[in-house]
């Protein structure tokens, strides 16, 4: 009882006085690294876009594929991982009454390991010893240090997962029978996914290391690739679930409304955790060695992930309409005028949600057998993940930054920075529409992804793609302006904005909300179900790849 009381007290104190200094520094460090990665990755992105459209010839010491590998690693791994962890650790700190000292220590060790791992990855990339893209498909072999770096990054993320589990378990022990607060519940789902998604890629990397050193002669390329995508697609959904957490919990508060049904929110989280890992297989739809029937089953497994997203789509627009009508909004769609369009904390995540409509539809198309075959490995795919990651996820992260950064820095969001944020949001939106739109279209025409500027010997078909690639460069140029404005805003809010208290916006439930059933808290059960689904999806193909394996492949350095 004593502990329960002290916890509630702590909780209240925390809510009244904001985040503790130690917890704030932790999140601040994570967020700082995330936005530094955005700046670097963004600049490299611009270099690529200009080269791809034939406007910029790279100097001989800098290779397009080197730039592309670094761009991918910085934005796909560093930006997202550091932001997700920083954001959720602040959420845990806020909703569970502060981080436990040992958890904070674990998160710092995780931070250090990820930085060490990242340096180990970047050095060989800079030396052009690891131009293998962030997918590093064997039998292309990078310098062993690259893979060792990946192991450190994985270990660092695992540390953060374990820290989060300890903090949540401790809260549950002290608050028996209570539901874990909703943001902490989201965090639990995300860290469970991260924890399990990293297992296959860790196995892959651990089999690659002895092969890259030359201790083992050959490697099974199909197994490596399959293990990679079991992780790769789950990572995508981890960012997505992080963005969704802000849509369900934070955005309703910012517009002055109430949260959507607590039970349904938790059901969406459980569904996304259970069904995600198996989605990775749709990256292998046109691979050899996998039976057509297995591929068809995997189409179902991928499309199933669409269902909780459709639940989310309904929930979000229902919350918007309900809130707007309470504030006097009228008409079938006239209520939209009541939304706070001038508030960047709403505008950025709102556009992010709207972007997810075409992004999700494109995702459904390209995870489907014969539709994938039309666009597989073309620029369409690049357009797709700039729409999903670059808009739906990253714009939500930007929106979060306008309250999270002031919150952890004990400063406030000034009207000027808010205005800058609104401008940034529109520049980003227009830039992404240009870039992702051009990528989708030119991809449909056949232009391949991950290819530096080429006309294939002045081939007429390839030359006809040039206008679209020019459009891509225009979008990319707008986006770098967006990056600079966003990084400026974050630095300003972190170090220079006026001192003050910023609240952590968490929406309340409706007054007449039904009680959430306790089965939603049974994570042990959901993990077992998740593992069963993973087994259904992966046991047959992986066994086949191993039992019917061809002689393996030796390492190649082809760049």
């Amino acid at each position: 009882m004593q502990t329960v009381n002290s916890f509630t007290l702590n909780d209240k104190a925390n809510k009244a006085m904001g985040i503790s200094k130690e917890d704030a520094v932790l999140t601040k460090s994570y967020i700082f690294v995330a936005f530094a990665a955005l700046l670097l990755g963004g600049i490299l992105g611009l270099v690529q876009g200009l080269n791809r459209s034939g406007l910029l010839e790279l100097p001989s010491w800098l290779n397009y594929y080197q730039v592309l590998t670094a761009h991918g690693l910085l934005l796909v791994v560093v930006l997202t991982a550091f932001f997700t962890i920083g954001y959720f650790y602040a959420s845990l700190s806020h909703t569970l009454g502060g981080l436990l000292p040992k958890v904070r220590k674990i998160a710092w060790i995780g931070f250090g390991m990820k930085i060490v791992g990242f340096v180990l990855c970047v050095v060989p990339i800079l030396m052009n010893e690891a131009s293998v893209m962030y997918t590093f498909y064997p039998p292309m072999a990078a310098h062993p240090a690259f893979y060792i770096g990946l192991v450190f990054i994985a270990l660092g993320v695992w540390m953060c997962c374990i820290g989060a589990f300890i903090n949540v378990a401790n809260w549950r022990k002290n608050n028996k029978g209570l539901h874990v607060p909703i943001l902490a519940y989201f965090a639990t789902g995300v860290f469970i996914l991260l924890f399990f998604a990293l297992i296959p890629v860790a196995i892959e990397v651990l089999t690659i290391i002895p092969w890259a050193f030359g201790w083992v002669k050959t490697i099974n390329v199909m197994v490596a690739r399959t293990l990679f995508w079991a992780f790769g697609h789950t990572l995508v959904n981890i960012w997505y679930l992080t963005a969704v957490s802000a849509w369900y919990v934070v955005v309703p508060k910012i517009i002055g409304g109430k949260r959507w049904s607590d039970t349904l929110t938790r059901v969406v989280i459980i569904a996304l955790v259970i069904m995600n890992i198996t989605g990775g297989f749709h990256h292998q739809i046109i691979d050899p060695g996998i039976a057509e029937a297995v591929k068809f089953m995997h189409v179902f497994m991928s499309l199933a992930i669409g269902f909780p997203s459709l639940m989310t789509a309904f929930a979000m627009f229902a919350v918007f309409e309900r809130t707007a009508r309470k504030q006097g909004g009228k008409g079938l769609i006239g209520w939209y005028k009541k939304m706070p369009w001038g508030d960047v904390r709403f505008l950025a995540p709102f556009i992010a949600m709207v972007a997810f409509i075409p992004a999700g539809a494109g995702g459904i198309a390209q995870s489907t057998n014969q539709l994938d075959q039309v666009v597989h490995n073309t620029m369409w795919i690049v357009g797709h993940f700039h729409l999903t990651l670059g808009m739906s996820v990253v714009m939500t992260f930007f929106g979060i930054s306008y309250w999270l950064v002031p919150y952890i820095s004990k400063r406030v969001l000034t009207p000027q920075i808010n205005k800058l944020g609104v401008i940034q949001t529109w520049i980003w939106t227009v830039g992404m529409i240009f870039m992702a739109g051009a990528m989708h279209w030119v991809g449909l025409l056949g232009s391949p992804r991950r290819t530096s500027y080429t006309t294939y010997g002045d081939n007429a078909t390839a030359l006809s793609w040039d206008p679209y690639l020019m459009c891509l460069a225009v979008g990319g140029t707008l986006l770098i302006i967006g990056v600079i404005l966003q990084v400026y805003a974050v630095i300003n809010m972190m170090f220079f904005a006026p001192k003050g208290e910023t609240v952590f916006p968490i929406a309340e439930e409706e007054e007449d909300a039904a009680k959430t059933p306790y089965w939603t808290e049974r994570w042990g059960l959901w993990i077992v179900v998740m593992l069963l689904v993973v087994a259904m999806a992966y046991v047959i193909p992986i066994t086949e790849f191993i039992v019917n394996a061809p002689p393996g492949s030796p390492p190649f350095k082809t760049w």
Partner: protein
Amino acid sequence: MKMHLDEKIWLTLSFGIIMIFMFITGYQAFALDMAPPSNKEIIDPQKVDQSAPFDQPGVKQIGENEYEVVMTLQVFSFNPGNFEIPAGSTVHFTLTSKDVVHGFEIAGTNVNAMVMPGHIQKITQKFDKPGTYLVLCNEYCGAGHQAMSTTITVK
């Protein structure tokens, strides 16, 4: 669990659409033979040149208006490359890689297949329209990836 009627309708429709989508995909894949390339034969990736049929890559006529193309992909070329076929022919491609992972794409068609070392991939295409088709590698394969292309001329 409390759920509004309009949400129930929305979710029923969502589920229904996913099911219809699955049905059409399955019908096309299994009844209309449009399933993605999924050949399951294997080969020793270090002995491609010595193994049939890749010991003799090339274009072979196997019937009236029907051709088999046995092709190896390697950094950064297709073998055979720049060949001709008559308009209206059906071409069966048999592909493998001698080194890293490559992609086999013919721009302007739905021919698109991953070509992995150790695996033999197969895909078929009927070429009705005369013209020069651009064949390219769409999986990053190294420093010369952007140069890995060839053409098929349909006359």
